[in-house]
């Protein structure tokens, strides 16, 4: 970037090194009426980067539906909140930790988990479940093994220690992530509806209190790094990655929840990205007040830290609170009990400015509104590219003799194989409320001490999004909806984690806009609003962007745990039925990518009307106790889904279908479909319910034996399939 009329004393390169554009710097000077000092420049850099300001995405995010009868708190707070009856609420959010995880997979992933946990317990909720959504490069890429094992042990290392079960997630492998993996972490917590805590500072003169770990020099400029592209020198950015301490987070969690039982906290905000800077400014902005902070009072881990370093450190496991002054001593005692730092570092003021003092000297004085309301917001130029064309496949091009062999090859592929190697490294049962463990459609966690539960699932198909961002956006939302329904729950709301490339490129911005449009349409139609989210842009290495990846985390409510369904086949003699029509859409399917090594044929389209009808039918059938087990038909198609039900239940099946295009029938990825195991006694009732609701419902097999047998095609032992299924991901790690 060049500017021939640089009139400022501040070095142009200093501004650029802070990730600020020159016109953004001009805006700062205009707002302050002077040039900022270094500390102030650092603060603007932290607040105005993409990660904290959402400057490229804000305009579009506002288009998503965010309200609904169960929404207690939509986007804008630390996490979203939904009503789950009986005075209880679920609090949840998903967040990215992509850049740090690529630089240092263990710590990057671990602190990603730590950060999202804090977002949830800041609001007064006890975290009850962690999930994640992970993308790695090609399985045989030289970095994949190291990144996969580092990320998995980092997620486990943090969650296992703090004692929150990691109950679910998803993982994909694709060359578009070779130089930029994605690590998205989600936490779900439970609170009482009348005990939710917010971040708006209030009460002039009230103490601003710092609690948790000491501040060190780690993670300085982490959020700015996370808002830049990678290049050959990216490894040099390793020192910007924070180091996590789950034990301290456990102490912080317990101390905060203990204090939250008292009427002491007026406002609370965790110190996440951009640490003390964003937390203090967020609290002041939300409360429309000012804050004055004496930085010399901040508990420090290193000697001689400057105001600049203290404001920009991303040391983990810290919180900022505004307390009722009469409760200060009581609060101090609680934090002392848990051996944590507790320091009054400032006070709420009526100046509407952030004033920073250090050793009696003023280090910064910035009006809050310039930092927040006046933050740059861009309506970036975008181009919507034509979606990849839909290809018609013909039966003649496939040899039906290969169907079971192809199935075997497909379930061995890391994209479809068992994820057991991953989730066995996560404690998924601590808290003793995990009802459905990882490996089914959605995980189910009981609300402690009740007979109700939460179902949760994370999903996205980046390949669908790449080839048709609008349909891909719809699909990501709908896939979680289906998973939640198949587990026996009522889907309520989602959180989103929008991972994209450089928004300054019009075609990338076009992907973003289209994914949002697709998500919005699906959310509206399904009454499934967005309550929280996060945006991660500039996921590029050497100018090559990742595939558009709007990862969605959905949450649903099961009012009666006896209605929980899993995908395992349960009993000989039961019928296996399919819900929804199969129209041989093989485009972009796992079959085409794994067996034919191609990525073509167009993203399957979703008819939201049909989706809603089919989903409601499955929900009704489960609630009427007509269903024995349920599974949604996802990537890989019907035969992969059937084999998953067989392997999980250790039961075989005999399949008989009428089709003149077996490959199309078995591997197509047409949408809005489910597989249901129905006992013969309930079959007629089920068929009637389907007819009444205009839902396509068809019996395709009978459960029993130890093989998958397809009439006129052949059979395959479940035990042999299981061996293949177990190899895929495990192989990468060896």
């Amino acid at each position, binding site marked *: 970037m060049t500017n021939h009329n640089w009139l400022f004393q501040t070095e142009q390169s200093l501004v650029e090194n802070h990730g600020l554009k020159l016109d953004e710097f001009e805006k700062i000077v205009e707002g302050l009426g002077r040039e900022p000092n270094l500390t102030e420049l650092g603060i603007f850099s932290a607040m105005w980067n993409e990660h904290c300001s959402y400057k490229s995405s804000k305009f579009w995010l506002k288009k998503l539906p965010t309200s609904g009868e169960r929404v207690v708190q939509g986007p804008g707070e630390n996490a979203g909140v939904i009503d789950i009856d009986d005075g209880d609420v679920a609090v949840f959010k998903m967040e990215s930790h992509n850049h740090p995880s690529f630089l240092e997979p263990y710590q990057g992933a671990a602190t990603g988990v730590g950060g999202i946990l804090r977002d949830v317990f800041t609001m007064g909720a006890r975290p009850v479940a962690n999930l994640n959504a992970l993308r790695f490069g090609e399985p045989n890429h030289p970095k994949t093994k190291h990144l996969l094992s580092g990320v998995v042990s980092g997620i*486990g290392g943090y969650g*296992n220690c703090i004692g929150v079960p990691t109950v679910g997630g998803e993982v994909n492998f694709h060359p578009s992530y070779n130089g930029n993996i994605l690590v998205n972490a989600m936490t779900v917590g439970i609170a009482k509806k009348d005990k939710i805590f917010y971040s708006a500072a209030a009460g002039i003169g009230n103490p601003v209190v710092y609690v948790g770990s000491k501040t060190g020099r780690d993670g300085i400029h982490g959020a700015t790094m996370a808002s830049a592209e990678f290049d050959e020198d990216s490894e040099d950015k390793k020192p910007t990655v924070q180091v996590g301490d*789950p034990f301290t987070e*456990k102490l912080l969690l317990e101390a905060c929840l203990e204090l939250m039982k008292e009427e002491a906290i007026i406002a609370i905000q965790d110190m996440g990205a951009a640490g003390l800077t964003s937390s203090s400014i967020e609290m002041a902005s939300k409360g429309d007040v000012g804050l004055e902070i004496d930085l010399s009072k901040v508990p420090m881990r290193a000697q001689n830290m400057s105001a600049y370093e203290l404001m920009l450190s991303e040391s983990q496991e810290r919180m900022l609170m505004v307390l009722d002054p009469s409760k200060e001593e009581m609060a101090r005692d609680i934090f002392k009990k848990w051996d944590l730092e507790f320091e009054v570092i400032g006070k709420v003021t009526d100046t509407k400015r952030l004033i920073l003092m250090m050793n009696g000297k003023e280090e910064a004085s910035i009006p809050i509104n310039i930092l927040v309301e006046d933050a740059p917001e861009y309506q970036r130029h975008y181009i919507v590219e034509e979606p990849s064309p839909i290809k018609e496949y013909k039966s003649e091009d496939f040899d039906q003799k290969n169907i079971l062999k192809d199935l075997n090859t497909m379930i061995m592929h890391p994209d479809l194989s068992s994820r057991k190697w991953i989730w066995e*490294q996560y404690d998924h*049962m601590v*808290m*003793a*409320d995990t009802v459905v463990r990882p490996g089914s459609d959605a995980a189910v966690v*009981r609300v402690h001490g009740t007979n109700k539960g939460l179902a949760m699932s994370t999903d996205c198909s980046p390949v669908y999004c790449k080839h048709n961002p609008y349909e891909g956006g719809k699909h990501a939302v709908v896939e979680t909806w289906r998973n939640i329904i198949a587990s026996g729950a009522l889907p309520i709301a989602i959180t989103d984690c929008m991972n994209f490339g450089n928004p300054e490129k019009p075609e990338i911005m076009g992907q973003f806009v289209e994914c949002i449009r697709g998500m919005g349409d699906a959310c509206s139609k399904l009454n499934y609003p967005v309550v929280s989210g996060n945006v991660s842009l500039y996921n590029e290495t050497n100018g090559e962007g990742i595939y558009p990846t709007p990862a969605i985390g959905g949450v649903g409510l099961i009012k009666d745990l006896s209605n929980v369904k899993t995908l395992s086949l349960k009993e000989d003699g039961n019928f296996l039925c399919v819900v929804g029509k199969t129209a041989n859409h093989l485009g972009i399917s796992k079959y085409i990518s794994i067996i034919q090594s191609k990525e073509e044929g167009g993203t399957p389209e979703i008819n939201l009307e049909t989706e809603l009808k089919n989903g409601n039918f499955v929900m009704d059938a489960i609630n009427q106790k007509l269903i024995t087990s349920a599974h949604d038909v996802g990537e890989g198609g019907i035969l992969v889904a059937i084999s998953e039900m067989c392997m999980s239940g250790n039961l075989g099946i005999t399949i008989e279908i009428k089709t003149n295009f077996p490959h199309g029938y078995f591997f197509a990825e047409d949408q809005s479909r489910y597989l249901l195991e129905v006992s013969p006694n309930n079959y007629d009732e089920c068929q009637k319910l389907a007819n009444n609701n205009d839902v396509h419902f068809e019996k395709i097999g009978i459960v029993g034996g130890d093989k998958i047998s397809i009439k006129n095609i052949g059979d395959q032992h479940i035990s042999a399939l299981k061996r293949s299924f177990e190899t895929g991901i495990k192989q990468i790690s060896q």
Partner: protein
Amino acid sequence: MKSHVIVFPGSNCDRDVAVAIKNISGHQPQMVWHKETSIDQSDLIVVPGGFSYGDYLRCGAMASTSPIMQDVVKKAKEGVPVLGICNGFQILIESGLLDGALMRNSSLSFICRDILIKPKNQSSVFTKKTQVAKMPIAHNEGNFFVTSEQLKKIQDNDQIAFQYCDENGNVSEHSNPNGSLENIAGILNENKNVLGMMPHPERAAELAHGCEDGKTIFESILN
């Protein structure tokens, strides 16, 4: 029936085990904070799983020197039943109440899954009701080791509480999840009033867990 659950700052199975005890015995156990120095009269002291002090040093090493552990050791020596689960087992070893060491799993990774165990000692207050039982393990350091002299001692004295096994009760390398010597999943002290075990019976203690095999261990001691 009075029971106590020790709570270290990083314990994370303290609530789970308290719930199991309450459900099975009808009595609410008393939670005892690690900074306390004594426990009242007790019929069972549980040292629960978790990460006591973060386990950044050897697992359980710091916890073994905490104020409350001095009294746990004293009570154990007086004959009070003490049950250490997972991290609790590690702490009991570090406190000198049990023999051996718990090393990193042979796979060098954390393992969380269901396993099967069967009692070797069938007469102790903890093991007398249990047959082949399914329950989860969730640990990174559960690979039990003792010297050959110690092994002979604990074998001769019937101190092996549980061994990892298969559905038919066979103890084999195949059924060993973590590399433990002799598939040892839990051991007793000489007087058989202290049990340390890696598997989590409190996570297989009600229908919602999908398995209730863990109940037998609590039932045998609580009733």
